[in-house]
């Protein structure tokens, strides 16, 4: 069974036509991989479907805009993977 990171890396590679081997856990989706907000909607849709969750993109954006969080917390892929795992776990409770 593939890890959360592998699943989202595969989604990003396929959705944004980015070479899979250039997508690392330390990659920042925006700053390193150059994914813009519209392309990220495609990724969010694929992640929502794959994990049966709803990524709270609006809440994350608001937190970043309010200075309560950094983009690293949500868009560095190892952190995004951790957030997804939390959402999946919360779904099961």
């Amino acid at each position, binding site marked *: 069974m593939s890890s959360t990171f592998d699943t989202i890396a595969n989604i990003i590679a396929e959705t944004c036509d980015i070479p899979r081997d250039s997508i690392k856990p330390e990659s920042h989706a925006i700053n390193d991989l150059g994914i813009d907000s*519209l392309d990220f*909607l*495609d990724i*969010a*849709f694929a992640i*929502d*479907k794959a994990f049966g969750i*709803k*990524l*709270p*993109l*609006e*809440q994350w*954006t608001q937190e970043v805009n309010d200075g309560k969080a950094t983009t690293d917390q949500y868009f560095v892929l190892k952190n995004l993977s951790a957030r997804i795992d939390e959402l999946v776990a919360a779904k099961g409770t």
Partner: protein
Amino acid sequence: MRLEYFQLIDRIIDLKLADRKISAETTVPNTSTIFEGHFPGFPLMPGVLLIEAMAQTSGWLVVAANRFERMPFLAAVKDAKLRMFVTPGHKLSVEADLVHEGSGYAITQARILFDGKPICDATLTLRVLDFPNAEMKLRMREAASRVGFPGEVLPNG
């Protein structure tokens, strides 16, 4: 359909939030300045306006899903297929399914039928945002009444 006013939908026929589906009808006008250019001597409903008709129909479904509190804006059109010519006088059925409601966006699968035959379809992404201002919300409520948006979905009737 009033092309010059970008009113692509005449009437909502059915809107079932539980099923996440909408259907609407619209008739291509017999005359329009658009047909003077598209095309001289061979009037055709522009494909981009058929896509707009699907976007507006999808939009009403997303408006309903958000209880008229938020406004959808077309963000992406995927796999659009224009399968046959649409000419003045055609009465069209426009349908959309809400495939996914994400955080700040929605995905619909939309199609247009003529005489039961599919004439175009696409997957649409809409950004779902707060209404930019009170006037737009008011105007959209007026447009909703014009197309027969179901009253039970409107806040305060």
